[in-house]
């Protein structure tokens, strides 16, 4: 309906990428172009990197992991590494810390990718680094606009209070929109590496299943009945459902139920577009062009959660390609026998105590790392050491990126 090429027609690996890099953006009338000159440059770079990209890795990297382990930072560092490798990389961040958002320049820009330049005085990258901060609400609005059959339908849906609830607060909406944004960026052909951060989750499938979430909601029996409130339909509503709806009506007024019915009635006819797009996004995630990076820290609880996520991914046919373990204490070489005892009463005693303490925690962390490598023997594991300062600027990101180099 709008010139999209289904993922299945793009072919596997490199050929799809070269096609994407050639960019049928103009044919598609893609919005958000960044000026003719930038376009020409990136197309040239894209054509060049398109051929190399197969050597450099996947088109899409999805970072998953528990909260508080540095997932957003890792996603940004992976994109920066891509830019350093000459790729046109874009990172999709979700709720980054303020200073990181400032460093990426995404704090005050909208829902569209924004080009990140090297810090003043620093050398640039052969490729490009772009960043976008996910705005779930406007991504959803955009999608409604796209699949509405006419403007009146779009306006009616956008103004519906139940739609506002679904797009702003429904569980899984943020995940769904992250996948949607990823698909939109990938489809535009402007980037040859897209790294996407995901909301913290113990349940990785929240993200993987996200495109199916709305479909599931639309398929919900209760909603189906709401969408067809005919006499027969009403009779079919069980007593319990009926009471539940009455309760909902009592809680928020009959208007809410009326709005819900209206929303689903308005949505009629757009379902197919959403369904087809969700399917293609799903195919992208399942294709060989998407890689999964599991991010954790070397502590028992986050390793447990990370391995639980990996197990769930495996159950859905996804394999974890990279494991990034952040904030590891360095593995210092212990001092020679007798040195610790000899220095116990000297001014150097605190240095000895410190080394013992840090070595102790590093050895405990090593046990956790071994659990990761034991459970995921095929994944490449990257240890990112505890950096002395907060990773909140491009320089620090570059330092992290160095630890993510292959080999």
């Amino acid at each position, binding site marked *: 309906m709008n010139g999209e090429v289904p993922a299945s027609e793009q072919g596997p690996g490199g050929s799809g990428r070269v096609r994407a890099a050639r960019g049928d953006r103009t044919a598609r009338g893609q919005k958000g172009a960044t000026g003719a000159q930038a376009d020409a440059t990136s197309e040239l770079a894209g054509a060049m990197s398109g051929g190399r990209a197969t050597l450099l890795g996947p088109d899409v990297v999805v970072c998953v992991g528990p909260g508080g382990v540095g997932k957003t930072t890792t996603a940004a560092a992976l994109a920066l590494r891509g830019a350093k490798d000459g790729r046109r990389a874009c990172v999709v961040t979700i709720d980054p810390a303020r200073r990181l958002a400032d460093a990426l320049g995404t704090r005050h820009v909208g829902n569209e990718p924004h080009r990140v330049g090297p810090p003043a005085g620093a050398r640039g990258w052969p490729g490009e680094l772009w960043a976008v901060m996910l705005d779930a609400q406007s991504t959803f609005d955009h999608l409604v606009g796209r699949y509405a059959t006419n403007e009146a339908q779009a306006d009616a849906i956008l103004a519906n209070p139940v739609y506002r609830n679904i797009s702003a607060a429904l569980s899984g909406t943020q995940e769904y929109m992250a996948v949607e944004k990823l698909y939109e960026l990938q489809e535009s052909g402007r980037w040859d590496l897209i790294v996407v951060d995901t909301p913290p989750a113990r349940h990785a499938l929240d993200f993987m299943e996200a495109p199916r979430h709305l479909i599931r909601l639309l398929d919900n029996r209760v909603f189906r009945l709401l969408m067809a409130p005919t006499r027969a339909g009403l009779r079919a509503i069980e007593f319990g459902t009926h009471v539940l709806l009455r309760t909902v009506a009592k809680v928020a007024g009959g208007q809410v139920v009326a709005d819900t019915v209206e929303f689903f009635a308005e949505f009629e006819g757009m379902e197919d577009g959403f369904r087809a797009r969700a399917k293609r996004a799903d195919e992208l995630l399942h294709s060989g062009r998407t890689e999964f990076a599991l991010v954790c820290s070397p502590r028992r609880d986050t390793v447990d959660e990370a391995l639980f996520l990996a197990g769930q991914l495996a159950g859905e046919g996804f394999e974890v390609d990279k494991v990034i373990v952040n904030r590891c204490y360095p593995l210092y070489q212990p001092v020679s026998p007798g040195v610790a005892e000899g220095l116990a*009463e000297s001014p150097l005693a*605190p240095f000895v105590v410190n080394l013992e303490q840090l070595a102790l925690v590093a050895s405990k962390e090593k046990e956790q790392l071994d659990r990761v490598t034991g459970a995921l023997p095929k994944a490449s594991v990257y240890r990112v050491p505890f950096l002395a300062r907060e990773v909140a600027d491009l320089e620090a990101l570059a330092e992290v990126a160095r630890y993510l180099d292959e080999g």
Partner: protein
Amino acid sequence: MEPLSFFSQARVLIVTGKGGTGKTTVSGVMANLAATAGLRVVVVQVATASDRLQPETANLSRLFGSDRALAYDEMALRVGQADGEVRARALRPDTALVEYLHLHGLRRISRRLVNTGALDVVATAVPGMPDMLVLGKVKQMERAAAAGLARAPELILLDAPAAGHAVRFLQSPHGLLEAASGGPVRAQAEEVVEMLSDPARCQVVLVTTPEETPVSETVETAQLLEDRAGTKLCAVVVNGRLPVLPLPGGLGVDDLRRLAAGAGVTLGAGDAASLSAAGRLRLLRQEAQAAQVARLAEELPLPQLELPFCFSADLGPEQLEALTGALRKAVASWEPVELP
């Protein structure tokens, strides 16, 4: 302050903070200290509507030496001792909805309703309701505690969702009050708001680590919680602070070897390099943490309770004992601060 007085400030303490700062650990340590002071404590782990699918974990149980994941029914973590008890349970919006329906005469069909996605319907129509149902359950436990019912807990520690979600979670009853004009849910929302805004019944403990981003987000969360949920902030726990070692700065490898020689020890190049590099990292981290603790004190006028970093990657009974001792000391010098 004695632990007993500290934990008698409110019947419900809501523990929240940025993900990864140790909310669950702090909940466990607080529960353990309160139990040593003779209280019957229940730790309640909650999931928000948006993460209702997340599996309950055994992180809290493990502190107490058990491997069992929490469940809806209370589980004993520390019982049979001369002083108090610690029990724990997990509450999820779907179970709270089932219970709510039970109480409203819909017992027979409630399970089936939830299984067929009624929670989605409710969450779609009234987004704050699943969270509010969980808070309603907590309020019910608090009422039982207030009434001094036999076997009712004397202290409820709510291991709440991570900071950003916590604001939405605690705001849910306020949102419902705006949406609902009457009925049983409105009544429940009113009662929950009453509990949240009564400092004798409910206060918030914020958890952070002495690092830049967690401190910034803690300050923001504190302001949002006060403004939007109207809940009194009791203290901020600074978790994972490295014990401060008196390491002199500016010493290079050669200085270390010279000082060692003075103590009659010949330091090899490798030994000196290890000691020097580890010392440098520790000093930088100590200084950075001290700066963040100072910034936190400046930006958030709340009493701080400090818990040390455990040189371990796994927290069990041994760490629980050490942290409980540290919290006892921190509480001893704790003074409530009246906010202007």
